[in-house]
């Protein structure tokens, strides 16, 4: 199974990287950009008997190491298998596939 983990600075944490990227985008003419937050993407491949089990384990990984909860929030999607993660739809907590992407 593959967990696609997104870690972003908490809303209350000042994100100078995000502010700088926002300024860059606006300087390029993307005047519609109102906010940018810069975070991290972490892909974890793991063995798990079920999606529920994987969910709990990845949540614990995030709490203990992948995110520092003083400054960061996290969220993740679980995908089946180990290959071509982006081509597969995410599993929900019950292990069901979501809508196929258009």
């Amino acid at each position, binding site marked *: 199974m593959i967990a696609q983990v997104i870690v972003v600075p908490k809303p*209350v*944490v*000042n994100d*100078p990287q995000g502010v700088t990227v926002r300024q860059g985008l606006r300087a390029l003419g993307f005047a519609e950009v109102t906010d940018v937050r810069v975070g991290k993407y972490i892909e974890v491949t793991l063995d798990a008997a079920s999606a529920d089990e994987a969910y709990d384990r990845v949540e614990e990984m995030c709490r203990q*190491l992948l995110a*520092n909860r*003083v*400054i960061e929030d996290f969220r993740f999607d679980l995908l089946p298998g180990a290959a071509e993660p982006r081509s597969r739809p995410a599993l929900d907590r019950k292990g069901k596939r979501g809508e196929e992407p258009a």
Partner: protein
Amino acid sequence: MKFGVVVFPGTWSDRDWGHVIKDVLCADLIYLWHKDRELHGVDCVVLPGGFSYGDYLRTGAIARFSPVMDSVAEFAARGGLVWGSCNGFQILCEAGLLPGALIRNQCLEFRCEWALVRCDQPSTPYTWRLERGQLINLPIAHGEGNYFADPDTLRQLERNGQVVFRYCDASGEPTADANPNGSMNNIAGIVNTSGNVLGMMPHPERCAEAELGGTDGLALFRSLLQAASSLTLR
């Protein structure tokens, strides 16, 4: 007094600390390899600056899993002196030995310069030779020294007098201009509630000899030398 300077892969200030401890203070020194659980009877553990584990994931995030850190946490819980500077401060926060976190400098630049800091807490083993409000000049060298804590934690730190050092201007005011990294409340260093664990972004080991441009860092070492003699572990 015996100092143990911890060396992680990527630590870079260990020899500077070692030089001051051994050659300037004439105190006992041992380097503690991060895989070594034994603290060899040291009176003070130093977590020096650098880029432990290449700052992977977050600064200090991986170092806290080194075997030596279990012993350091246990030593700190017994009242042992644990002194972290720069990356050492980041490790102490990641390890939960100090509250809060250090994030990217507000200016996004690596800041390598002298910083004026005010001592706001002289009642610690590290600072008792300083006066309350005394200004000292210490070098800083970091890209992630922007101290952050949630509002409750920040209030507690202030209420308990745990803020030891604050970036200030020459008149002793903690202004935004004097703040090199955007730290909340201009915080440059804090202690735990018992006062035995100190984390600070500046480098006292880089200003302990006149040849290096200043000796203000020596006051901390000298405070500790005298304090350690009266300290008993729980």
